[in-house]
């Protein structure tokens, strides 16, 4: 029966019916026996009838399709199971052909199709763990490969693909300036706005400069810029490499004797290594400017005082640490993006899965590396 059919359309269909005449040992079928007009419960009528020999008369069936034939076979099976006997099935020639065609191809209970293997929870967990281990190992080996390629980058026998680098700098860097800077500006504004009441309570208004200088330059801006670029460029790298993999373009490169890592991955990574620190610098400026703008009205610190405090109390190391971190973040974004792109298997949904994974893995790694840096710099005592 067709779902959500309007009453008007329902009238146009003559539904399949079964009429039982016990006196004549006859079961009369009529109506259209197609998927549109058969009700699933049509066979329930059979349960209540007596055991006897039945003649199925289908001469009045208006039309039958394979679904109808399936129900017809099921009707015969039901009757046989209940202890009755089907003496004959009368159908017109055209329907008889279809009935014979579908004879004996019903799904049996012991068919291998019914043996669906379900994974148990333990198996799933084991598989996931093994998969995680494999991915980690592969990522480490990819890292090694990249390091080797980078080390031999300026050897004379390998050409440096400058156009690709320029493309990445343009796509990831230039076109990302507006979004990273404006978001970091807002974060600067936000932090000042939220923290201002706390500083006022202690009468330590002027310390907002120290707070902003350290938190923004050292932590927030590099992290936020990297995360935005991971979402914006990392996913794009994965999707484009993945599509190339699906279309066998990467295999084509390899057959020409050109290393995909050198030709496709390196330009992306170098481009990111160039553009992410610059983006971070610009975002640093934007975020500090945002803080400075709101420190005036909220805390009574005007621009000259803000800049003076910043020069005196905020060590330049904070800025350099932020930039250093962004270099590592750029490497992570490029590496993970390309790694996931190469892991795409030859299907469209695989591209989607790997793009998601690329963003997730790079953001996770960025935060882990950020935490590591915090520990290292603490240990080194750099303030």
């Amino acid at each position: 029966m067709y779902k959500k059919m309007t009453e008007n359309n329902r009238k146009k269909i003559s539904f399949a019916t079964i009429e039982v005449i016990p006196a004549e040992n006859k079961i009369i079928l009529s109506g259209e026996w197609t998927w549109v007009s058969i009700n699933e419960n049509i066979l329930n009528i059979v349960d209540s009838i007596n055991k006897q020999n039945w003649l199925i008369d289908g001469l009045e069936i208006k039309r039958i399709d394979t679904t109808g034939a399936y129900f017809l076979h099921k009707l015969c099976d039901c009757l046989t199971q209940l202890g009755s006997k089907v003496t004959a099935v009368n159908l017109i020639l055209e329907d008889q052909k279809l009935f014979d065609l579908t004879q004996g191809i019903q799904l049996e209970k012991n068919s291998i199709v019914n043996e669906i293997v379900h994974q148990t929870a333990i198996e799933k967990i084991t598989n996931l763990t093994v998969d995680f281990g494999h991915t980690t190992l592969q990522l480490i080996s990819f890292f090694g490969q990249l390091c080797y390629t980078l080390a031999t980058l300026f050897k004379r026998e390998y050409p440096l693909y400058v156009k690709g680098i320029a493309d990445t700098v343009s796509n990831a860097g230039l076109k990302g300036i507006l979004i990273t800077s404006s978001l970091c500006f807002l974060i600067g504004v936000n932090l000042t706005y939220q923290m201002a009441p706390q500083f006022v309570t202690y009468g330590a208004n002027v310390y907002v400069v120290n707070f902003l200088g350290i938190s923004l330059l050292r932590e927030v801006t590099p992290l936020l810029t990297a995360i935005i670029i991971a979402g914006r460029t990392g996913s794009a790298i994965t999707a484009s490499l993945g599509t190339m993999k699906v279309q066998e373009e990467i295999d084509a490169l390899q057959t020409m004797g050109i290393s995909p890592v050198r030709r496709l991955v390196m330009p992306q990574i170098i481009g990111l290594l160039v553009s992410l620190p610059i983006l971070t610098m610009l975002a640093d400026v934007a975020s500090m400017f945002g803080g400075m703008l709101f420190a005036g009205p909220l805390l009574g610190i005007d621009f000259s005082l803000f800049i003076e405090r910043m020069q005196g109390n905020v060590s330049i190391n904070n800025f350099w640490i932020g930039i250093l971190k962004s270099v590592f973040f750029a490497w992570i974004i490029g590496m993970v993006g390309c790694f996931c792109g190469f892991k795409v298997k030859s299907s469209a949904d695989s591209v989607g899965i790997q793009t998601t994974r690329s963003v997730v893995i790079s953001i996770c790694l960025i935060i882990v590396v950020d935490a590591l840096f915090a520990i290292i710099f603490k240990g080194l005592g750099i303030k």
Partner: protein
Amino acid sequence: MRINNEQPIIEIRKLGTKFFDEWIHKDLDLTIYPNRIVTIIGASGCGKTTLIREILMLQPITCGEIYLMGEKISTYDLEDPYTKRVLSQMSMMFQQGALYNSNTVLENVMFPLLEYTDFSYSMVRELAYQKLRLTGLKEVAYNKYPKEISPGMQKRVALARTLALDPRVLFLDEPTAGLDPNSAASFDELMLNLQQQLGLTVIMITHDLDSIWHTSDEIVYLSNKQVTLHDTVLNASNRPDIPDLYQYFNGTRGKISKAYYTQNVKGNN
């Protein structure tokens, strides 16, 4: 409603299609009667696939009318459930199979049934199983994913899925492309068999000459934005007045198939 063999199943009148100021079809007329295999041929880019897509309402037409069993479908609203029911009488097998990769073979065939009918899941499963068995696919493949089975098997699954809603008109876009000769021959055989048993009207696009000679009842030749010829295969192959078509059937490759099949026809008679 049974199919009346006298009434055309598909009728196209004065069809026009325009892409970016360029006419693909202009004043195209085509009448197809039921219960036969019709092959559409023509040079690449002459609008064979476009024509099929227009009949299936996958693509809007610029002008003209398309009728399916006497009903004018070219003006139907696609969102109306009734339209969908009318359209479910036509089904298309795409060139690449277009199977859903995230579903198993059986689930692929179950999909249209689950969408359209109210039958319970287990019953739909049995129905889908039946369709797959009709296409002669081995049971071991039913729980596999499309990418795990061979292209020949994928074509069979695609065929089973197109048959799921018992269409009366079946469109096949290059069904034997990319298959090895054995698979292609057995697919031809299967198609011929199902067409006769289920009383289908098959409209096929193919460049496979063996397939054309072996299965087709009629040839529709598209050129100059119109149907230039609509005739049996044998007649179509003997028309020196249409040079491209003549070359198609009597070129280096065509000659061999033609010689083989015409001889067979004579031998059988």
